[in-house]
């Protein structure tokens, strides 16, 4: 299977992903916190952007991976892809929660409020709810086949929220600033763009590394459960033989 070969090849570079993530994040933190200048309007508070925006971008990327994986699973019924989807949902929920938390912290000094029912914030929170529902669904259903199928359907249905999140700042009048990266170009100076790009690349690599570790963790956990089951059945068989 192609997907198995791809996963195996990518996993061979797991260490590179981790090392690259550490390097880019350290460089991004140094440039963002020490080297880059403050913003004319926001002052030093603009530095929150270097952690908030990469977290938000990575969470959206995580949801795209989850959706593509879910479509692939429904098509091919590949358990390895299902395992990866399960892993990516948990990571997506964490990245989304942290992006929301850092956004709230940024909102207080710039908008003078921790939270507002703005279109971007609301649609983004809906994504977190979908991810939590996905994880709950995977916990509550006993039949593994059914669990994977229902979860994949939920993830695909939730995909509708992604364009809403992306275009919310254009479709509605929102408090959230418009996109800085668009077809019209990039609306920020290179001094601010450099740390932002460093942190974004670092976060994406970190997410990929965490995904590999989590997929491995879920796989090993299942393997251990299966082995324990086999040990138990072997024990019962030996009991009945004697």
């Amino acid at each position: 299977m192609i997907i198995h070969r791809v996963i195996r090849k990518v996993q061979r570079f797991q260490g590179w992903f981790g090392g690259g993530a550490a390097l880019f994040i350290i460089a991004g933190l140094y440039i963002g916190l020490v080297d880059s200048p403050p913003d004319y309007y926001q002052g030093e508070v603009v530095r929150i952007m270097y952690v908030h925006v990469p977290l938000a971008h990575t969470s959206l990327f995580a949801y795209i991976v989850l959706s593509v994986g879910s479509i692939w699973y429904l098509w091919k019924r590949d358990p390895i892809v299902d395992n990866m989807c399960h892993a990516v949902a948990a990571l997506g929920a964490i990245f989304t929660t942290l992006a929301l938390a850092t956004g709230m912290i940024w909102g207080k000094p710039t908008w003078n409020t921790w939270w507002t029912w703005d279109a971007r914030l609301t649609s983004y929170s809906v994504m977190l709810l979908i991810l939590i529902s996905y994880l709950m669904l995977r916990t509550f259903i006993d039949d593994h086949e059914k669990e994977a199928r229902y979860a994949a359907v939920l993830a695909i249905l939730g995909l509708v929220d992604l364009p809403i999140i992306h275009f919310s700042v254009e479709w509605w009048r929102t408090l959230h600033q418009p996109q800085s990266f668009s077809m019209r170009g990039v609306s920020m100076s290179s001094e601010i763009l450099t740390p932002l790009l460093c942190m974004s690349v670092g976060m994406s690599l970190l997410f990929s590394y965490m995904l590999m570790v989590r997929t491995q963790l879920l796989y090993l956990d299942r393997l251990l459960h299966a082995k324990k089951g086999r040990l138990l059945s072997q024990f019962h068989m030996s009991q009945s033989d004697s």
Partner: protein
Amino acid sequence: MTSLYLRWGGLLIVAVGLSMLTYNHYQQHLSTVSPHQMKEQAPRQEIRLFGMVRGGTLEGKVKAGDATFELMGNDTSVTVHYQGPPPDNLRELKTLILIGKWNPSDNIFEARDIGLVTNYGFVIGAYLIGLIPLAIFLFAMSRRVGLLYEEIKESKLYQEE
């Protein structure tokens, strides 16, 4: 498992180094002093003076970027002569940060720029909340993977593929 702890130990050392660099940067370029501290320390280098413009003292061509006023802080006031870019936020009873040099001979603070008042707690809070949970989660996962490998190896049914 030892290599895992070594890797994370190295990362921790780098994180501490980075925090020290950031703190140093804050102390050198962003920390402020009150008029009281400035008069006590009489610094020769450029400083950031934090205080409030005393009501009824603002004179000169404010919009053109040439003004004189008194700045208050910690029950001490200091006369300021501002000459710099036309300011957006220079008005009476406004709390601000002035960047410039103290001239002890005529007791006047010569300001060349005005900085924004920032609550750095928000910046620190965002970085800690954004990065520490990720690090803890990744460490816990990596450790669990190591433990699971060992547990699987030790269980009796293990057969190498």
